[in-house]
């Protein structure tokens, strides 16, 4: 329609003065159409950003674009109702814990409905399931929160067993047990999260449902103000003060190597953790704040990560509920990309609950308000980032360098690419260029290392003349200083009055 009016306007131009008016009107119309299209556009016309060392936003090409969406409408399943969890198994089938409808749904990766579980009127009937995990053999494990148990189904959907509330001396008898997320590692251990914000950590169960202890609990950090308050208050006052508790885990993910990734939405830093087999965080060495703090009016909104997923290369994608954005980090917790956001458009979320990664790095995001799954596919830019960081993490710095150069051709601001190039130059022995690259990336540790190597080379080459020069300079300095001092020592400071 816009094209028609434009053509009409163009034809009018030059023939009679009204044509100009028409042309103007057409231009205005098409402009307003354009504006409205941009405002409701899908994600592929927008830009993304990364964060520099100060947390300032640097524009960046879109890493992921909206591909298609899956919902239950006009399918045998019917629509979803408040779905809570999404899982993608090793055949790339998509599983959904359809909490409000008390069932599991299975789709293929294109969104074709396959079947449902947990609705048969037998022992395996589900009540508000919130977590799902499918093992490599195809066994289906469900955190059946409403029934307070964990249920196992065979791949064909027959009920196998249910693990109820674990008993242990570590747990009270009246312990509230509402399992809402679970994963299973290769040894068959079951890692269960207790709903309702249990701060004691992950429940570690063996395959028979026997309680083996708590795993990977968050710790409270030292706080001087709290210590002061506690040391100056009486016992009665202490009871009035609300207890400070460590934060809980909201979700977890297990990678093929057995690392457990967790997210803690109420933490301010180290919200994403990679726990090794003894429950220690190996993702970051020092406290790192993931996500972005946002200022909304006078309020500061902290990110709340509610789900995390890791692809085969080790790229971590985490879903921030507050901003609705997905933050992607590499194997050593460097920010790679940001996309998504709150909104009603395509590629945005209203109540994002869970995410999972499918074939070729596609990211599936489950929205509990829109009751759908939106699928995003990585752009060429994101694929470059993933390849580059994988090569870098594996220590193939020179192969990575060619990819980082490609990345910089698309986005010259990209700090991680400059760091990668710096590392490559460093390995090749070109320390001066490495220092320049590190300086652009504002990577102080890398710069310092390259500088140390450069200094070593410089000293080795120039020691012959440097040493006499330094000795001479020290001699000159000491003589000048001692003479000046001697003069000053012998002075009397008769300075009353001074010059008029």
């Amino acid at each position, binding site marked *: 329609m816009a094209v028609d009016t434009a053509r009409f306007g163009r034809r009018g131009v030059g023939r009679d003065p009204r044509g100009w008016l028409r042309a103007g009107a057409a231009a205005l119309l098409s402009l307003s159409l354009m504006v409205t299209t941009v405002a409701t556009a899908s994600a592929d016309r927008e830009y993304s950003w990364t964060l520099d060392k100060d947390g300032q936003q640097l524009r960046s090409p879109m890493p992921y674009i909206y591909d298609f969406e899956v919902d239950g409408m006009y399918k045998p399943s019917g629509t979803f109702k408040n779905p809570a969890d999404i899982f993608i198994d090793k055949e790339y089938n998509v599983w959904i814990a359809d909490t409000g409808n008390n069932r599991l749904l299975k789709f293929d990766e294109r969104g074709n409905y396959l079947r449902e579980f947990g609705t048969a009127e037998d022992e395996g009937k589900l009540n508000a399931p919130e977590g799902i995990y499918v093992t490599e053999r195809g066994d289906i494990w469900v955190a059946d929160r409403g029934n307070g148990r964990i249920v196992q189904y065979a791949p064909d959907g027959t009920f196998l067993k249910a693990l109820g509330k674990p008993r242990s001396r570590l747990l009270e008898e009246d312990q509230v047990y509402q399992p809402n997320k679970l994963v299973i590692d290769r040894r068959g251990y079951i890692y269960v999260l207790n709903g309702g914000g249990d701060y004691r950590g992950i429940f570690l169960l063996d395959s028979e449902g026997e309680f083996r202890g708590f795993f990977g609990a968050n710790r409270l950090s030292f706080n001087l103000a709290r210590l002061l308050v506690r040391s100056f208050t009486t016992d009665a006052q202490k009871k009035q003060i609300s207890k400070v508790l460590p934060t809980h885990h909201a979700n977890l993910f297990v990678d093929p190597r057995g690392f457990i990734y967790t997210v803690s939405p109420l933490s301010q830093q180290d919200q994403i953790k990679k726990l090794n087999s003894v429950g220690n965080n190996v993702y970051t060495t020092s406290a790192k704040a993931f996500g972005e703090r946002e200022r909304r009016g006078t309020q500061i909104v902290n990110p709340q990560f509610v789900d995390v997923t890791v692809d085969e290369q080790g790229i971590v994608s985490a879903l921030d509920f507050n901003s609705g954005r997905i933050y992607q980090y590499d194997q050593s917790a460097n920010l790679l990309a940001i996309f998504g956001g709150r909104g009603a458009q395509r590629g945005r979320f209203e109540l994002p609950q869970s995410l999972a990664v499918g074939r070729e790095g596609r990211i599936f995001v489950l929205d509990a308000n829109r009751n759908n799954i939106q699928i995003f596919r990585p752009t060429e830019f994101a694929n470059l980032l993933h390849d580059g960081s994988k090569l870098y993490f594996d220590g193939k710095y020179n192969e990575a360098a060619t990819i980082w150069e490609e990345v910089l051709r698309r986005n010259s601001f990209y700090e991680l690419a400059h760091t990668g190039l710096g590392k490559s130059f460093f390995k090749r022995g070109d320390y001066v260029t490495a220092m320049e690259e590190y300086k652009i990336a504002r990577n102080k540790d890398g710069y310092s290392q390259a*500088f140390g190597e450069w200094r070593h080379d410089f000293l080795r080459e120039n020691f012959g003349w440097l040493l006499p020069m330094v000795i001479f300079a020290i001699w000159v300095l000491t003589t000048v200083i001692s003479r000046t001092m001697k003069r000053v020592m012998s002075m009397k400071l008769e300075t009353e009055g001074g010059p008029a």
Partner: protein
Amino acid sequence: MTARSIPAVATPAVPRRRVARPGAGRAGTAARWRAAAGRVRWYLTKWFRQMLFVLTHPTEAFWELKRTGDWASVAFLVFLAVMARMLLMSFMSFHYIFQGVERTKWNLERVMQQFTATMTLGMTNFIYNGNPEDTSVIQEALRILIPFVTWCLAHYAIAMIFYGEGGLRDIMVSAAFSLSPYIFFSWPASLILTNVTTLAERSLYFSISWLVNLWVFYLFLTHIRIIHDFTFKRTVATYIISLITVIIIWSLVALVYALTSNTYEFFYELFYELTTR
């Protein structure tokens, strides 16, 4: 009509300001400039010697400063401290600027550094924690000026209560001269050490910064002891109470600001209502 000079070194006689004689006309312009330059040189020489004296013989130097100190030296030395700070920042090598580096580790070195820096109210800071492009001279000047002025006022008030002998001029002059280790050593340390050492060897730079901070702290204690003729115990007591007073002054200023900004807003909105209705 000869100017008084410092006896030990033959400084050139500074011409006095002459009364314009009838008939001299404008011929004296060059002479007046020369005289002004002479006076400037005289003062600079004096202050330089006093600084060196403070560094080498603090006790005698502060004793002398009670007699020979002048107000102008306060402005000059604070200016030098600001310049030293700017030089320190501009000489600092890229990898020593701690923007975005998490320094979460607490070790003895850092505790001592924090302690001495606190005792000098952050006036003699060595760590540059900013973005080189965002540095502002005014901001850095205020970071020295505000603690300096509040310290002097607070200390003046407390010393009066403690029957100290020193007046406001003695306090300000000797506090300014106590900054001389920072003025002399901060920027060479930054120039030489941060451009020669890597981050792994950073303790070399930070121990120097710690020593200078400690030195300034010692000079503060000494000048309080000397100018007020206090015992050591009384000196330490005054020092600590003055520090507390500084904090009280700052919190009072913050309180007053919070209250007045509200009243300002109130009157502004009242005015806005009245004018737009």
